Structures are given as structure tokens and as C-alpha cells.
């Protein structure tokens, strides 16, 4: 048989035990627990304090008299008007301020909007064209220089001019068509001249003889074309630098 613990005795004494009926049954059945519980009851029953002295009916009034001088009345809250004008005006002012700030921000943004880094699509396209055209003229210039040197120094040249000329020829056709549409007669004429030289080299035998090179130089005036290409490349480089400077300035 499991006896009641001291805590269970105390809970039972104050009527707060969860299993009250079980505790009662146990106390009836177990003399040891019943005796211990009786002792606890008598012990706690002896613990009595003095009865509180009676207070007169005026006790509350006396306490109030003693403390009311120390108490400050709570501030009277002003009744609000029907439409709560001050609050409404404040809210409207806030809304108006926010709206004005928003509009001012939009206006300032519109007037001070920096040009986009990428610029317009047309400007971007122009920069790309200048870049690739400059690259194309550079490669063409090197090919012409190699061609001129080859004809002057060696008997048979075994340089990869033909393959390079074939690649440049394809590009050159595209650039020439683009430049023609852009209405630039000087560049169009130069690219047209270059195309004919490239076509000649591209269609030449694998090993060009000095006589072949000399013929091409003479018939195609490659020296004059080289000069033209250099002038054009300088011009295109300047345009490209100018475009780059504008872009950099915007970024800064």
C-alpha cells in the first residue's frame, strides 16, 4: 500500500488534492496515515493568529481622510470636437507634406536624371560599330603591311595571308554594306578598294611569288590603300575615344 506523502496530507487538509476520494479511502484504510493526518490537522488547527480588531464603519472614511491630501486629481481630459479638427488638420497637413515631397522628388529626378550608363540603343550600337570597324581596319592594315613586305624581301612567301584575307573579306563585305547605308562615301570607297584586294589575295594560290605580290601591289595600289586605311583607322580611333570619353564622363 502506498502511503500519502506530506504534500498530499497538506493538500488534503486544505481541500486542494486532485484525488480527494482516493485520499479519503486511503485514510480510512490506513491507520498509520490516518494518525499522521490527524496530527497534522491538530498542529495546523493550533496555528491561529489573533483575530483582527474590529474596525468602525467610518474606517474607510478615516483612511480616505488620511490620504486624500497626498493625492493629485488626474488631469481632466478635454472633450474632443465632433470632427476632431486639430487632429484632422494635422493628418491633412502630413498627407499634403508627403504628397508635395513625392512630387518634388519626381520633378527633381526628372530634371536631374543622369543619362543612363549604357546610353541610347543607337549610341551603344555606334560604339560597337566603331570598335569592330577599328579592329577590322587594324587587321587589314597589318595584312597590307605583311603583303608589301613579302613582295619586297623574299622570293616565295609562305605567310598565312590567304586564310587571313578570306576571314577579313567576309567581315569587310558586312562593314561595307553597313557603311554604305550610313552614307560615308570616303569610308565606303576605302572598304570597297580593300575588298577587291582581299578578294585577290583570298583567291590567290597558297604560295604567293614575289611576282604575284608585285602584281597585286601594282594593280591594286596597295601602298595607297594602306595609307587610306591608316587615315581611316586614326579617324575611327578618335571617334571611338570620343565616344568612350563621353561614356566615362557619364559614369563618373
Amino acid at each position: 500500500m502506498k502511503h500519502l506523502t506530506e504534500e498530499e496530507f497538506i493538500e488534503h487538509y486544505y481541500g486542494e488534492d486532485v484525488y480527494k476520494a482516493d485520499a479519503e479511502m486511503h485514510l480510512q484504510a490506513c491507520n498509520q496515515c490516518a494518525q499522521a493526518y490527524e496530527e497534522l490537522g491538530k498542529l495546523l488547527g493550533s496555528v491561529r493568529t489573533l483575530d483582527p480588531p474590529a474596525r468602525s464603519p467610518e474606517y474607510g472614511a478615516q483612511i480616505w481622510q488620511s490620504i486624500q491630501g497626498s493625492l493629485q486629481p488626474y488631469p481632466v481630459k478635454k472633450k474632443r470636437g465632433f470632427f476632431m479638427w486639430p487632429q484632422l488638420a494635422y493628418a491633412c497637413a502630413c498627407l499634403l507634406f508627403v504628397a508635395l515631397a513625392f512630387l518634388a522628388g519626381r520633378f527633381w529626378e526628372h530634371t536631374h536624371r543622369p543619362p543612363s550608363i549604357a546610353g541610347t540603343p543607337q549610341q551603344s550600337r555606334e560604339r560597337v560599330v566603331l570598335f569592330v570597324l577599328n579592329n577590322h581596319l587594324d587587321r587589314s592594315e597589318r595584312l597590307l603591311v605583311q603583303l608589301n613586305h613579302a613582295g619586297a624581301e623574299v622570293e616565295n612567301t609562305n605567310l598565312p595571308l590567304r586564310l587571313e584575307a578570306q576571314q577579313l573579306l567576309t567581315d569587310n563585305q558586312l562593314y561595307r554594306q553597313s557603311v554604305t547605308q550610313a552614307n560615308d562615301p570616303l569610308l565606303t570607297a576605302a572598304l570597297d578598294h580593300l575588298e577587291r584586294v582581299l578578294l585577290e589575295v583570298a583567291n590567290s594560290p597558297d604560295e604567293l611569288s614575289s611576282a604575284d605580290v608585285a602584281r597585286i601591289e601594282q594593280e591594286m595600289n596597295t601602298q595607297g590603300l594602306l595609307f587610306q586605311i591608316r587615315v581611316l583607322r586614326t579617324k575611327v580611333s578618335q571617334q571611338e575615344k570620343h565616344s568612350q570619353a563621353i561614356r566615362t564622363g557619364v559614369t563618373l
Partner: protein
Amino acid sequence: MGNDDHVLIRQILAGDKDAYGLLVARHSVSIFRVAFRITENEADADEVVQETFLRSYRNLGSFNAQANFRTWIYRIAMNCALDVLNKSKKLTTLPVAEEYDGELSTVQLADSAAGPDRLLLSQEIEARRQAAMKKLTPTEHLAFVLRHMEDRSTEEIATALGIAPNSAKQAVFRAVQKLRQSLVPLWVKS
């Protein structure tokens, strides 16, 4: 009563200080009773009542309108009583109590017949009880008084003391154990 309390509180917060006088009149006697149970001193109990109503008025703005004013002011009264108990514990020296002799394992209950010896024993029991009560911690003291004298439930004690119900129950257990240890020797003597 509860609704009336709330009406008065609204009036007080609206600037009607005198309405608080009605609240004081309504609750002062019950606060005094429990304060006296705790302090066992009439002057201290009066001091607790005054301090309770002063604190209550100053904190009335934070009173939750959904709460029960009586429970709320009871809790303030407990805090005030705690302050008084702590103050009195600092000022008074505990009387040296006889320790329980563990060899005396049997308990003999007192004879119910009243005589000079019996009266003397009752005085000794009362002195020992007071000493034992002073040995309790403030929380144990309050919990025991509320449980044993005021017949408050564990939940009510927990609310009044601002502690968890289980803590309140344990405080009562510890108080009873301490009282038992102090008082059992007297039962043996009798």
C-alpha cells in the same frame, strides 16, 4: 461590485478624485483584515492599508479595465505587507527557539482539560508560533496566511503574490513544514 468599481475608476481617471474615497471605503476593511493577519500588528496593518491605497491611486492609470479591482489592489496590499514584514524583520531579533529533538519520535497530543499548566503551555505555543512565523520567508509567510487564515485557493495566492501556482503551493508546503518542525516539540512536551 466589480462593475461599480470600474465605474468609479473611470470617474477618478476623468478627474473626480473624490470618487476614490468610495473605493477606499469599500475595500479598506478587507485590506486591513488581511494586513493584520500578516503583520499581527494593528498599527502596521493600518500603515499597510494607507500605503496600499496611495500606491493604488498612483498606478490607477495602468489598471487593466478587464481585471478585477479587488484582485489588483490585493496584490498591491501584499507588496506593501511584504515591505512592512521586511522592515520589521530588520528591526527585530528573532528569539532563539528550541530545536526539534529528533529522538522524540512519538507525538502525544495535549490534554483538552484547561489548567494552569495548560495555560502556560498555550502561551509557550503562541510564543513558539510567532517565532516560527518569523522564521518563514516573506513569500512563505504571505502564502501561508492567505492559505491558512484567509482560506484562499492556490490560484488566488499565486495571483496575489504574482507568482506561478506551483510556486505558491510549494511556498505553503515549506511554511507548513517549518511550522511543524518548530511546533512538534511542544506537542511532545505536552
